[in-house]
């Protein structure tokens, strides 16, 4: 398909994929002030445990939202539901105007996920890993695209070494290439800095910033690292015990005092 959201040739036309093109068209036509992600009354229970207790969230096209929260706040569960990996117990999630319950498969094609798990095969090389993911996402001009994304994350020199020999930071950068191979419009980042040293975290931040700012992708990141979380976002939210209890535009908050706000919100909810 030509002329996608980012003006790049990326995804191929396949049989029975009309739904995907509907999603893509809607996302392409989404104006900057329209909400691209809408979450309404989402709950999720695992047996007696309520991981999410009525999440309402709306994110505009091109926005970067960071969701802070302590361990066990349900951040990963929320990302799993947003990325259509998990179904909510109740409530609705729509991306690009498509309810995930109706068009989940099509929406998945336009989502990239980076988590603390890299989703990479240790026995394969970066080239083989990214090429494999490119194939299952139906990426056009695959060879060129694989080389491009690996070069973008600075691993061209290690393209044919086994991923198992890479440091955690290199694996996480390659994970970024994996998440971007199909040129998604929306990126979900679930604790992407976990296990990274300062240098690796900085490199990842630079790359994430480039892919968000230069290519206007809508990004949602969860983290409990306040310093890292505030670096790139333009919206912040605090999630505690399965609920979003605070949401504000970054420009309206005092960064230096945000830690106090965070602890106050957590403390008020017995965390």
């Amino acid at each position, binding site marked *: 398909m030509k002329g996608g959201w980012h003006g790049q040739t990326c995804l191929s036309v*396949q*049989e*029975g*994929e009309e739904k*995907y093109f509907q999603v893509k068209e809607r996302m392409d036509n989404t104006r900057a002030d329209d909400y691209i992600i809408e979450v309404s009354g989402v709950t999720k229970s695992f047996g007696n445990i309520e991981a999410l207790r009525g999440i309402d969230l709306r994110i505009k096209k091109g926005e970067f939202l960071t969701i802070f929260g302590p361990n066990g706040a349900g951040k990963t569960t929320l990302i799993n539901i947003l*990325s*259509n*990996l*998990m*179904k909510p117990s109740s409530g609705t999630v729509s991306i690009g105007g498509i309810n995930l319950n109706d068009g989940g*498969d*099509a929406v*998945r*094609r336009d*989502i990239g*996920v980076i*988590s603390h*798990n*890299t*989703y*990479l*095969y*240790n*026995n*394969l090389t970066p080239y*083989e890993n990214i090429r*494999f*993911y490119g*194939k*299952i*996402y*139906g990426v056009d001009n695959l060879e060129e695209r694989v080389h491009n994304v690996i070069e973008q994350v600075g691993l061209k020199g290690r393209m044919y070494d*086994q991923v198992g020999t890479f440091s955690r930071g290199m*694996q996480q950068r390659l994970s970024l290439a*994996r998440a971007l191979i199909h040129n998604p419009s929306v990126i979900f980042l679930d604790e992407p800095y976990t296990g990274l040293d300062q240098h690796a975290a900085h490199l990842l931040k630079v790359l994430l910033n480039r892919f968000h700012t230069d290519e206007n992708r809508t990004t949602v990141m969860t983290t409990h690292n306040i310093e890292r979380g505030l670096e790139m976002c333009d919206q912040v939210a605090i999630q505690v015990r399965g609920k979003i209890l605070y949401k504000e535009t970054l420009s309206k908050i005092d960064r230096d005092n945000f830690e106090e706000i965070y602890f106050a919100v957590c403390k008020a909810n017995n965390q």
Partner: protein
Amino acid sequence: MRFLKDIWAIVQKDIVSELRTREIFSSMFIFALLVIIIFIFAIDLSEVRGIDVAPGILWVAFIFSGTIGLNRSFLFEKENNCLEGLLLSPMDRSAIYFGKMLGNLIFMIVMEAFTLPIFIIFFNVSISGRILPLILIIFLSTLGFVLLGTLLSSMSASVKTRDIMLPVLLYPLIVPVIIAAVKSTGVLLEGKSLEGVMHWLKLIIVFDIIFLAVSFMTFDYIVEE
């Protein structure tokens, strides 16, 4: 076409990974070889007709070593949570099952291709004139084993006691195929034609069809959450 391309992508990925490590093949083949060698020493072939015990021993070697391969199969997908990476992609989830199943089938067939000649030499059995029927029986029985084994392997991969869980779930369910495979292999090794094993062959085919359909229908629910 998209569905087939996705299946092939997974098969290719598994083959490349296996060619690099040879973990699955080497563990399966060595185990199968050991089973045959142990039975050769345990059974006095001057007192027992080789043909009476050989089919059972052959299938014990195939099934037990195949279980080792099945156990490893989804373990690779659990490494770095790659299975979740596959589930995040837009591909039909049953393509993941068929891709893994085909990979397992190829690895088992390669192991069997190496093991069968050794078995024939050690047990001094003749398969001349019955090679094709024997290959058909082995292929269809292996297919049934892999169809069910891959499904159960995907279930047990998330469990801590997966090494125990897979055989516990798999062996009781696979009994019909094993009985049919052993009986029909025995008949063929005795020099009879394929017509003599048609009733066993039909049983294996029915089993294959049933578990193909069951796997296709249930894999989505197994991998969900």
